[in-house]
């Protein structure tokens, strides 16, 4: 057990910090052309991701030809710690980088890899992930989008929903049903679908926080033609890829969650210096102090839990803690925003803010943040699904 990293690891960190200092995107450029969805990659963001790739700082655990430097697990952890400290993300097509690229690496044919993998890593092509459907939100195995093999092509018909970034992405990494006779979990395949194909209709779904902000989309496929060569992995074996796709980098996802929460704790400390409803500093109110301290305990605990889980992860053990961290982290954030909003009283009703973006001069209002936290308690498996997973897969309770 150690509170500190060894010197070699700290040298790795120092090298990264120095590089980031030199190479981070220019604040003015970011503000001038902000990303508008999880697949909208402005020019500055593409250039930044390329710089990361070229320097081996995009996916440090991978070999240099794939944007990495064969970094050790501990080095990767340090990497994620550092990346959480800077105000830009490493990729503005995060699902492309963290879900689809690893899946391509693991499951795609050499020809597919040549066509898609490096361009994705260099942000030359962007992706959306076609998983959820109207009748199958939490229940992926129930998906019904049909792909019929006719000779050397598939004809795809159906509907996806909650598809992040679909309006801006070049390709969809799409889970489709290729055998409707087989049991639910079989008969699923993965196709790469060109989003410019005829027969695709994308309808944006603005978020509850902001009518102008729409990362989610409905995607309608009506007889869309997909070449057979775009089938990833074997036919009808897509289910195992679904589980695999989502697992990538999970062992370290908590680092950005923990960093964001720590920043929000700092915001609460700032809020404590403003007057409360009785005119005194909010920080003088023992109830507010108690709640903030409670949140602080939880945030620090989240970080400690992450490190503990990482110790297993680094040794190649399964880290079922992902569900625990996801559940706990997203619920802390929701509670944190609510504590802040309620402490503000009527002042909390003022939601004048230019919309979510990056490097803004003003923080988003707490009410907006609160509403936005539901993205994390709903998407990627609701909190209820996480609890099921913990109970059944981690604790071994019998399925109902």
């Amino acid at each position: 057990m150690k509170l500190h990293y060894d010197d070699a690891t700290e040298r790795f960190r120092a090298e990264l910090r120095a590089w980031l200092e030199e190479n981070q995107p220019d604040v003015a450029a970011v503000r001038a052309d902000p990303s508008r969805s999880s697949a909208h990659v402005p020019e500055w963001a593409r250039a930044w991701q390329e710089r990361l790739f070229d320097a081996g700082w995009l996916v440090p655990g991978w070999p240099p030809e794939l944007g990495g430097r064969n970094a050790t697990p501990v080095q990767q952890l340090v990497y994620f710690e550092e990346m959480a400290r800077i105000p830009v993300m490493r990729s503005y097509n995060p699902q492309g980088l963290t879900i689809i690229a690893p899946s391509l690496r693991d499951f795609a044919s050499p020809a597919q890899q040549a066509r898609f993998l490096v361009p994705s890593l260099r942000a030359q092509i962007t992706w959306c992930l076609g998983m959820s459907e109207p009748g199958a939100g939490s229940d992926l195995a129930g998906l019904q989008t049909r792909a019929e093999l006719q000779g050397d092509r598939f004809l795809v018909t159906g509907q996806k929903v909650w598809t992040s970034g679909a309006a801006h992405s070049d390709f969809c990494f799409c889970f489709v049903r290729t055998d409707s006779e087989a049991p639910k979990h079989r008969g699923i395949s993965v196709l790469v679908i060109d989003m410019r194909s005829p027969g695709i209709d994308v309808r944006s779904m603005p978020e509850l926080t902001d009518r102008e902000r729409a990362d989610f989309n409905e995607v309608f496929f009506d007889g869309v033609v997909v070449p057979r060569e775009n089938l990833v992995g074997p036919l009808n074996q897509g289910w195992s890829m679904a589980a695999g796709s989502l697992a990538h980098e999970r062992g370290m996802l908590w680092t950005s969650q923990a960093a964001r929460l720590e920043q929000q704790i700092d915001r609460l400390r700032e809020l404590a210096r403003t007057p409360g409803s009785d005119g005194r500093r909010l920080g003088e109110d023992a109830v507010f102090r108690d709640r903030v301290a409670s949140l602080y305990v939880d945030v620090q605990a989240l970080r400690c839990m992450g490190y503990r889980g990482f110790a297993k992860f680094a040794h190649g053990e399964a880290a079922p803690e992902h569900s625990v961290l996801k559940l706990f982290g997203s619920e802390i954030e929701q509670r944190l925003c609510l504590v802040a909003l309620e402490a503000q009283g009527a002042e909390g009703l003022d939601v004048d803010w230019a919309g979510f973006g990056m490097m803004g001069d003003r923080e988003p209002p707490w009410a907006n943040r609160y509403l936005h936290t539901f993205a994390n308690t709903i998407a990627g498996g609701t909190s209820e699904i996480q609890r099921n997973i913990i109970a059944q897969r981690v604790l071994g309770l019998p399925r109902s």
Partner: protein
Amino acid sequence: MDFEVSEEQEQLRASVADVLARECPPSLARARVEGGDAPVQPWRSAVELGWTGIALPEAWGGLGLSFEELGLVVEEHGRALAPGPFLATTTWFAPLVRETGDEVAGARWLAAVARGECTGSAAWGPDLAGRDAGVRARRDGDAWILEGTQRFVLDGDSADELAVAAQVEAGDGCALFLVPQQALKCQRVVSLDASRPLAHVGFDGVRVAPDRVLGEPGASRGVLARAREEASVALALETVGTCRTLFERVLEHARQRVQFGRPIGSFQAVQHKCADMFVQIEKARATAHFAMMVIAEDDPRRALAASLAKAAAGDCQRLVAKEAIQIHGGMGFTWESDVHLFARRAKTGDLLLGTAREHRARLAALLEL
């Protein structure tokens, strides 16, 4: 102790519910939130059907009923997510004018309210947070001059008349004035629930004529407190109404939405959340109705009951708004679903006139802890 509404009350409630169901779908609030103009309904119906004067004396053209009837109507407005000036006019403005006991002002402005010719609101006094100095008034001959700002005034930039509490040197330090809209400098707030407009209201040396001074300057603190109690109970009732509709939508969704081959309402996790939401709604509704009776009968437990109701309504919306979004899943996260409209309204109900936490602090004081 009888919590049962009378037959007449139930008839009134049902008729209001009918009209609102017809004239005031949530699309009215949505249009307002999405930047549309203030809707004509349901205010027009309220005027035509006399709801504006329900709790006003017949002498002023009202129906001469009590706060119970008004409260039931307000709860229905909450259920319908009604936009418009009804809440502020009938439960903020009218009580403040009425409580002064000023017959002349009543005959003039409250009769206008009853006729639907005047909308109003109230600026309750210095911001509790001390973020501004509130409004100060000084005598100028027969008249008074008002200076200062009031933040987060409901309908502050749209109500015809504003009843304003201001600090004065004399007596208990509190005086009440009526100020017409055109004398105000308003800054609209970009608000969590844009169908519930709020404004920061500036008084830039506003001169108030003697006939617009309400009651006795320097002897108005009690009046202010009583009116605010009434307004708090009304807001609690509205919040309960909003939570009830939201909960009905949750139940409907839970019965219809199928996942893993079953309606999600058959999952025990969803069932238990719904049971807990129901408990909170019943709790908030029962305390709000209790407070409604207390105000109607002018029982000595007014302050206690008002804080009880407001705190319980706050607890209720806290759980119901959260779980409503959560149980709706991805759908609840979209702008196009009405869930967030109800959640915004309910949360606004907690943040105005003192949060649950603040009302618990008042209760602790009343309990002499």
